[in-house]
């Protein structure tokens, strides 16, 4: 009996050591922004093809979810489509120890979408603000058909929601009639089915719908969310996408981040539909 017990204990110990070394050898967890989940998965796939020992796990849930996971120590890297707030950084550093590092990893041109059947081609940011706060409720006020506007938004754990609220609504409140959907993919799906719908999300998702040209204000030129316009800052809704991590905590994560910032990693960004960082 004793012998068996001892063998079992030894086996368990050996197993746990094995497991922990395997973990240290190359396992990285990434969690956060739904906007970035496609990008993160593509990075992980490409990286794991080149480094068969590495194990990268990517999940979504929203920027808020990723940052909460970083604060609670349940992820190595948090993906976020908005900058981390000061209070969040303090919270994470006091709970986990060490310094949080912000790493911009890609550029996104946030788009405002309408249905392909909508004749509208461009929108100014003040107009978008009026639609989303409920001051404009009919397409004819923008020169479109006489039809009420259905507005689609995101759940409030989304970094895209926070970015849109800050940069388009100028921190004003969304109209209560804005439907909140769980991800950019659902917004695109809803707008593609609704001829009177309007939604917003990352440019990489724009399929089956029409991204509008953006005017920074009513008199500014209409600008398309292209690579040049996003990098030069001409496009009004360009934003950086971030990784947040504690450098030195997990060496495998550090190697992965370095690879993401390399030319190889930045090439993947373009494949997914986002824009690489300006050099």
């Amino acid at each position: 009996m004793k012998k068996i017990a001892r063998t079992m204990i030894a086996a368990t110990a050996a197993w746990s050591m094995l497991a922990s070394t395997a973990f240290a050898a190359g396992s990285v967890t990434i969690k956060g922004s739904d906007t970035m989940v496609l990008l993160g998965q593509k990075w992980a796939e490409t990286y794991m093809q080149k480094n068969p020992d590495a194990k990268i796990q990517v999940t979504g849930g929203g920027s808020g979810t990723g940052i909460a996971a970083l604060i609670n120590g349940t992820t190595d890297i948090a993906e976020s489509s908005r900058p981390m707030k000061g209070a969040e950084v303090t919270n994470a550093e006091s709970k986990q120890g060490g310094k949080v590092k912000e790493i911009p990893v890609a550029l996104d041109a946030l788009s405002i979408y309408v249905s392909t059947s909508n004749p509208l081609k461009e929108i100014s940011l003040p107009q978008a603000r009026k639609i989303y706060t409920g001051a404009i409720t009919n397409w004819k006020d923008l020169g479109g058909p006489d039809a009420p506007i259905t507005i689609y938004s995101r759940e409030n754990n989304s970094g895209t929601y926070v970015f849109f609220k800050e940069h388009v609504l100028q921190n004003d409140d969304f109209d209560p009639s804005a439907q909140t959907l769980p991800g950019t993919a659902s917004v695109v799906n809803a707008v593609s089915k609704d001829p009177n719908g309007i939604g917003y999300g990352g440019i990489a998702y724009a399929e089956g719908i029409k991204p509008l040209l953006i005017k920074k204000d009513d008199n500014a030129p209409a600008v398309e969310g292209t690579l040049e316009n996003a990098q030069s800052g001409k496009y009004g809704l360009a934003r950086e996408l971030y990784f947040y991590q504690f450098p030195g905590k997990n060496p495998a994560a550090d190697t992965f981040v370095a690879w993401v910032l390399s030319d190889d990693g930045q090439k993947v960004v373009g494949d997914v539909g986002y824009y690489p960082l300006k050099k």
Partner: protein
Amino acid sequence: MESEAAGVLPRVTTETLQRAASNNRRFTRIVERLVEGWVKLSAMAAIVTIFLIFIFVGREALPLLWEHPEPGLEHEVVTWSNLVGPTHYPDRPSRFMWQPVSNVPKYNLVPLIIGTLKTTIIAILFAGPLAILAAILSSEFAPRWAREIIKPTIELLAGIPSVVLGFFALMVLATWVQDLLGLRIRLNALTAGMALGLAVIPIIFTVAEDALTTVPKAYREASFALGANRWETAIKIVVPAALPGIFAGVVLGFGRAVGETMVVLMASGNAATTTWAFTDSVRTMSATIAAELGEVVWGSPHYRVLFLIGVLLFIFTFVVNLCGEIYVLRLKARLEGTRP
């Protein structure tokens, strides 16, 4: 020798048997007591668990009343006017706002309560008549073989996971309802309420059916003897006698509809509106908790408000279910008491 042996042997055997029997009895008694204790413990565990859940939910919510916000977060403080009063704007009419992630968070519960009531009322209006008529058919009119198909089939509906119902509502029901009524908004209170109704039908049906079948046979026989036909007997005698039970079924269904989460999360559009139009999107209390609790900062005012919503839901379903159960008990006592 032989006679002695013959005399001793039976005596020893009897004693042994008796001892064995008494041992056996003692053993049985111990086992019985153990089993009894185990059953009691299980029952207590269930009660204690519910009690602890209530304490936990309340403990997370109540600090709202006295807790001071962390420095730098003073504007996030939750007051009564914040929870039930409208937000005022310089450039548009005042509104009840649920917008907890904001520079100045708005934690107004009015839209969520209206949303919950709206979907629940639609669910009951949709499921109530269907379930009650099905129960009357099953208990009064259907032949035995039909009854044996109807009853288990409807009760099977209760076994469908609510996420599957929600998925069905999101992909199929929403399109049907929108095309049929020409609605502007695809995901609305009506669609969510109808899908919720599917979850509620088996509850109302089961309780109503039980209430109808427990109406004593003597009632029906007396009615037939006075010349009433089956239809008159069912509508004028049996249904009124079972009315409290049917009502209890509706009340229990109401309790389920209020707390149901997945269906409304997927099919309601989740816009925190305050209109009473059934074709607008709504955000319910349960769906709000499900959508937001995953990412709130622990101990923040937002977190506490979500738990406060949990407390409200708990109290609401508890009171509603309690009323339903009391009605069922009263009905049973009344019907059994009047039995000859």
